[in-house]
């Protein structure tokens, strides 16, 4: 490559890696449908439980910073974005290491971290988009039509909130990818990645807000909950969606996401460089 290459040429291999993995993953329709059915059931139970607690709280005067409608919308959003969470490493990376195909990636004249990052981002995006679309169709359209309007997924607080949410969701994708990259590096370093994700998964579910909106956890924990990196996966986008973060607060929320992306990418890049230097590929 010459020094005169344009930024577009520089980005091309990574965009291609993203697109090819994205299209490849879109083929797994049955898996998406099965996951969707599970998430509808899960969301439905959560909604009924919230309704019971809120209904009772209305008579006893217990308070929450969220309305029931927001808690319900949050539930559907969290179910739709479930596979956005960094559950496990991209299986293709682990496979590449086991089969030795990783050697081809090392030979390409591109940055290995960025290439895998693009692929993993495509892998995640392709799993999220069909599921979130199905979930929206179910919870925004079908539920109101079925006469369960109070259980429906509500629209964002306003146009600005909607746009801020979209931007924040993209950041959430990048943040999740940076975490998946750490798992990929762990897989490459032949660490026990299944064990790591078995232990990491519950932590991710709680701290991202997927289990319960973080605002529902005890009030004394709120600051710590908001600044930790996993809040940027689900809770910060949701707060922007509801218009709870506005103006400078909204910028602060997005800034926090960018900060953690930068930290995790830097760390992942460093860890991958070290792992790759120690990697031995057998056979030919």
């Amino acid at each position, binding site marked *: 490559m010459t020094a005169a290459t344009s930024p577009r040429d520089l980005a091309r291999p990574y965009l291609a890696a993203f697109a090819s993995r994205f299209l490849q993953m879109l083929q797994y329709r*049955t*898996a998406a*449908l*099965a*996951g969707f*059915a*599970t998430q509808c*059931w*899960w969301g*439905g*139970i959560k909604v*009924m*439980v919230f309704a*019971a*607690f*809120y*209904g*009772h*709280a209305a008579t*006893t005067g*217990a308070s*929450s910073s969220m309305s029931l409608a927001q808690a319900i919308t949050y539930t559907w959003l969290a179910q739709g974005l479930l596979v956005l969470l960094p559950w496990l490493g991209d299986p293709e990376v682990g496979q590449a290491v086991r089969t030795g195909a990783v050697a081809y990636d090392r030979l390409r004249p591109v940055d290995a971290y960025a290439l895998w990052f693009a692929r993993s981002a495509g892998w995640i995006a392709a799993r999220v988009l069909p599921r979130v679309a199905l979930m929206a169709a179910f919870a925004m359209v079908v539920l109101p039509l079925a006469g369960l309007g109070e259980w429906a997924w509500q629209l964002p607080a306003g146009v600005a909130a909607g746009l801020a949410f979209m931007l924040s969701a993209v950041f959430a994708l990048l943040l999740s990818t940076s975490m998946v990259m750490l798992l990929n590096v762990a897989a490459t370093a032949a660490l*026990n990645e*299944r*064990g790591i994700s*078995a*232990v990491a*998964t*519950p*932590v991710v*579910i*709680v701290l991202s807000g997927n*289990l*319960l909106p973080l605002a*529902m*956890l*005890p009030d004394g924990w709120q600051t710590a909950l908001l600044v930790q990196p996993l809040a940027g996966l689900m809770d910060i986008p949701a707060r922007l969606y509801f218009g709870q973060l506005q103006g400078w607060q909204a910028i602060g929320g997005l800034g926090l996401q960018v900060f953690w992306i930068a930290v995790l990418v830097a760390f992942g890049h460093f860890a991958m460089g070290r792992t790759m230097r120690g990697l031995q590929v057998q056979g030919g």
Partner: protein
Amino acid sequence: MGSIPLFFRLVGASLGGQARYPASALMLTVGQFLGTGIEVIAVWALFHRFGDVQGWRIGEVALFYGLVNCMFALADALGRGFDVLGTEFLRTGAFDRLLLRPRPLALQLMGNDFRISRLGRLLQGLAMVAFATQQMGIAWTPGAVAIALIAIAGGVALFLGILVLQGTLAFWTVESLEIANVLTYGGVQAAQYPLALYARWFRRVLTFIVPLACVAYYPVLAILGKADPLGAPAWVGLVSPLAGFVFLAAAFGVWRFGLRRYASTGS
């Protein structure tokens, strides 16, 4: 060798195999313990913020939660063979080997892969039962213990039945479909709260179609000595767990139907 000793031999072999990788088994068990533990956080946080819900206290909900997790942990350990039937037996052709052996198919599948890691969920469930006992001052009289054991037996039968149905589905799809998770993991999720919180149609589903309420809700009411807010008489909890066995029998009926149309994938 008789069928039952053979089953225990299989279970022993499976456990022995997993014990060869102690670190992995331990980590998966801890993962199961933590993974089921997060639901406790959800229950606790909701009670912490909102207080009691419709007259239910956290100790009572903990008993639902604990018992249903014990049931599923045992059924999941037993039913793993049905769970992975599509991917590990049908697609590979290994199922034909099981068919050739002159021993009951169901026992071979149940003993096939008895997961140590399910201990994580079982411990979680038992811990919650202990917590409920301490919170609510439950008197574990012989009668209450008997009700709990019958309920657990019925619950194990019910969840095993769901896994058998999932395996049966694989005769058609040759895949292990995650759709059964709606009833297994989703069933645990649904049964860990009192039935009375749910909408009427959902209560009907959980009572008459997938009788989770019969193995969890009614027996727990009987143990707590609490009157059903929905008006079911007190004796219901003593007999309702039988519904789990009925469900399992029905599931094996469907299983035999599926088995008849099984054609090997060859090779």
